[in-house]
């Protein structure tokens, strides 16, 4: 407990080098299950992460997405040092996570959307006092940083309320503040917006973007919500079957997949013939006797307002909704392309 956090002294751990370097990472789980009719349980090995290699430079923002069971959480657990890889190499901020878990914990901030690091029965403010002491912040550092977080995440209304009384959105903002209090170099967010309403999501994303711009933080984020990736990350990594299935810019992904967004229009009066659409869009179907028109378009070529302007000239629109390609959908296309 006496060593002070002086990462810069060791050249291997300093500001140089990638933020995250995963090399041929693999993790097997042994599952004991009883087969039907069998008398004894048999051990079965499940490979959750399979030969995963990924490099993230300092200052990058990466969205790490994949279907359930693709190996996202397992990867995060290995990156944070709470899970030992079966084989392969993990380096986070130049450290070996399992061996240097506690030192690493001072340099990274982690939010598990489904778990809490706040003190349930105490006012939110008290959690920050404890965390400030844990991270050895001086009173001045802590106060300055907390003021910034309170303003940016709009915490002032419930700082003095016990955490158990907070709404989900309030608590998540508190969790993010708790993870960012010690100004970590690497922020890992595991499903940070799960269960949040649009307003809370937007507020959270706006602050994460601002804070990153101010401090040059590396951001690593898993999510089910494609718009999280769009707003927060420049690079998207899709995992499938425990390995990287796609790694690149989000726009390129959509382009390469031709994965269009879908605009669903309900017209005020039925119209059987297709609407004329600008280039880059196409009519994907007409339903409900001409009331509902589905139009597919690529987000890269066409914006929704332009498309809408062109369509509303032709018919009166009663209602509309916009469908984003779901992550699961993108992942399925990626795996289909690979085969």
């Amino acid at each position, binding site marked *: *407990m006496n060593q002070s956090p002086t990462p810069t002294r060791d050249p291997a751990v300093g500001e140089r080098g990638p933020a995250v370097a995963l090399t041929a990472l693999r993790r097997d*789980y042994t599952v004991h299950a009883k087969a039907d009719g069998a008398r004894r349980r048999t051990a079965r090995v499940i490979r959750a992460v399979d030969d995963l290699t990924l490099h993230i430079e300092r200052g990058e923002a990466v969205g790490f997405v994949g279907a359930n069971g693709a190996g996202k*959480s397992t990867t995060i*657990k290995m990156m*944070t*040092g*709470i*899970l*030992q890889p079966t084989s392969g190499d993990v380096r986070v901020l130049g450290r070996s996570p399992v061996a240097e*878990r*506690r*030192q690493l*914990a*001072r340099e990274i901030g*982690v939010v*598990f*959307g*489904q*778990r*809490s*690091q706040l*003190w349930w*029965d*105490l006012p939110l403010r*008290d959690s920050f*006092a*404890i965390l400030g*002491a*844990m*991270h*050895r912040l001086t009173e001045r550092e802590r106060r300055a940083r907390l003021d910034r977080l309170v303003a940016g995440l709009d915490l002032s209304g419930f700082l003095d309320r*016990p955490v158990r009384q907070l709404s989900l959105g309030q608590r998540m903002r508190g969790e993010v503040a708790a993870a960012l209090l010690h100004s970590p170099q690497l922020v890992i967010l*595991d*499903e940070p917006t799960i269960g949040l309403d649009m307003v809370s999501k937007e507020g959270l994303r706006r602050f994460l973007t601002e804070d990153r711009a101010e401090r040059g933080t590396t951001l690593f984020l898993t999510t089910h919500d494609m718009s999280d990736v769009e707003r927060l990350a420049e690079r998207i990594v899709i995992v499938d079957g425990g390995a990287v299935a796609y790694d690149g810019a989000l726009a390129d992904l959509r382009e390469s997949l031709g994965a269009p967004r879908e605009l669903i229009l309900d017209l005020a009066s039925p119209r059987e013939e297709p609407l004329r659409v600008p280039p880059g869009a196409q009519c994907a179907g007409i339903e409900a006797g001409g009331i509902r028109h589905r139009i597919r378009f690529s987000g890269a070529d066409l914006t929704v307002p332009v498309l809408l302007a062109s369509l509303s000239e032709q018919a009166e629109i009663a209602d509309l909704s916009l469908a984003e390609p779901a992550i699961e959908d993108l992942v399925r296309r990626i795996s289909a392309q690979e085969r």
Partner: protein
Amino acid sequence: MLSYWRILTATFRQHTTYRTATLAGIFTNSMFGLIRASILLAAIHAAGGELNGYTALQAATYVWLGQALLAPIEAFGTREVAARVHQGDVAVDLLRPLSFLGLFFAQKLGRSSYYLLARGIPPMLIGALLTGLALPEDPLSYPLGVLTIALAITVAFLGDMLVNLAAFWILETRGLTVLYNSVMNLLSGFLIPILWFPPWLLAIARWTPFPSMVQTPIDVLSGRVGPASAIGLIGVQSAWILVLLLAAAVMLRAGARSLEVQGG
């Protein structure tokens, strides 16, 4: 160190908010104290005024001190760590830049300090009013007694932690907790003084850490054991702390290695 202190005081404050639980605890503690005191007093009366070195007043003091220590020692066991392992919340604990055992020990000390004040003092007052208390002759017994309480809380914490850490390997620790706590309640000298055990059971008890959890602080605080022997008992307590700490550290290390955080 500051962070452990902050956690300790925060846990203390947190427990001050559970007023109903505290009142209910005081009530049950005192009721059971009355019942236990009357049984022991009847036994001593039947034995002709003294039983295995305990006079009526000493037996009553033994009961009230035991009732006072019940909550701080957490003689019925805790399940928090086991539950956190099973639900995967242990991931959050492991990601704190603190020692895992230190984190939970600070919480335990915060809790126990509150329990000592809120749940320890009332049974002593009731005992002083109803039966009277045997007080130690040597004033040195008081500081030594306080020290043995602190050590007893530490021994009990480590023993309970071992049971909880078993959750890394077994899915359901409730049975183990129940078993451990019944053995602990008996061999620690909480139910009856260990000197009343048959010789073979007394011999077994003396080879376990359990008497260090209850019998030792009671004996020192009530003055049944003088300051000179108290030093020896403190040595025994400290030795158990070392042994159990080592065992807990080994278990935690192995457990964290084999950990497969559930869910999420």
